[in-house]
């Protein structure tokens, strides 16, 4: 995959497009952490069930099992959040419930072993971990840009660099800036054969 720039770029666009709802809602470090952890749980369980279930079960039952596994993991994760921080659960509970229904999780559930004959479980798990890490980092960065601090800690007082970063509109604009930077760097590398 790494040898095919077009395919890699397409995969990155797909991942960003599918995860946009979570990127938009990860407006702070704590939200990014919670959403990233729930996404990792849901995605890993969906990918594991869909790729490890015996093919003799049939395609549709396997997809149903995988989607159920993702939902159960999201339920368990939400229950843990409720135990640790009931206030956070009250405020953000509906957001947590939506994690198993984002595009990459559903795609992982729908990609059964019978689809392409390959067992790409490890690759799928690494991809899920990468996506989860991306959500966490994006949440951290938005909080840093918006209020100049992470979880109330700042190096030299509070400095509001870009308050709009905490808003959904700011998330879209930041992702656009990242995508443009990525395209510019890729174009530069291609031109200079890096």
């Amino acid at each position, binding site marked *: 995959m790494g040898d095919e720039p077009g395919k890699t770029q*397409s995969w990155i*666009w*797909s991942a*960003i*497009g*599918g995860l*946009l*709802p979570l*990127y*938009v*809602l990860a407006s702070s470090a704590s939200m990014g952490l919670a959403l990233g952890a729930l996404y990792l749980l849901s995605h890993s369980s969906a990918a594991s069930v869909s790729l490890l279930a015996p093919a003799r079960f049939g*395609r*549709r039952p396997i*997809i*149903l099992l995988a*989607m*159920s596994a*993702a*939902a*159960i993991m*999201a*339920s368990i994760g*939400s*229950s843990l959040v*409720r135990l640790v921080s009931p206030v956070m659960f009250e405020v953000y*509970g*509906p*957001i947590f*419930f*939506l*994690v*198993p*229904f*984002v*595009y990459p999780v*559903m*795609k992982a559930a*729908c*990609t059964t072993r019978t689809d392409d004959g390959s067992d790409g479980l490890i690759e799928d798990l690494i991809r899920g971990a990468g996506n989860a890490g991306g959500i966490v980092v994006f949440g951290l960065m938005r909080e840093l840009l918006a209020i100049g601090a992470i979880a109330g800690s700042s190096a030299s007082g509070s400095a509001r660099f870009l308050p*709009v970063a905490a*808003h*959904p*509109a*700011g*998330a*879209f*604009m930041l*992702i*656009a*800036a990242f*995508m*443009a*930077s990525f*395209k*510019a760097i890729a*174009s530069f590398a291609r031109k200079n054969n890096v």
Partner: protein
Amino acid sequence: MSVPGLMFYMVFGGNVLFSSGLFWQSGVSRTSRWLEAALFSVIASVVAVMMGLLYRFVLSPSGLETITPVLMVFLLLLVMLAATVLTRFVPGMEPLSGYLGSVAALRVPLVIYAAALLAGGRFWTPATMAIGAGVAIAAYVAATLFLDNLVQRLELEPIPAAFRGEPVRLLSAGLVALAFSGVETAFFGILYI
């Protein structure tokens, strides 16, 4: 953020890149998209009623709110089957058959589950559900038709190469989201806590 606002951003964010060729099935006409939006409004209302009743009379009294995603999965599958059957009777719309096998078709639940989200807990009266369905449809239309028009006009402008394609679409989406945040603050923020 108000619940209608949350729904808007979920549906809007989930569909922003769908029509740029990443997930959207090629050859889908604008008429079909409007028909889909109309169909979604019906489906979203039905799901919202079902989830609202379940949440209010079963999940919330028994303290089982956290199993909402599991029930949603089964509800989603039911709605997928219903949508497959319904689209066969709508002229001009491609049949949504083979739902479970077609990942691209999963764009439909983005609207449905956002509507179901609205139905959970505090918002379950017919009026709030209607507002929720309206917000979800508005977000879907904004993410597809409005953004398509914006991007088509921007193609005539001298945009830097790095911003062409998805980046400029996302920048435009940011401006649409900014406009909605004004509506949310002035309207939904007052109506809903």
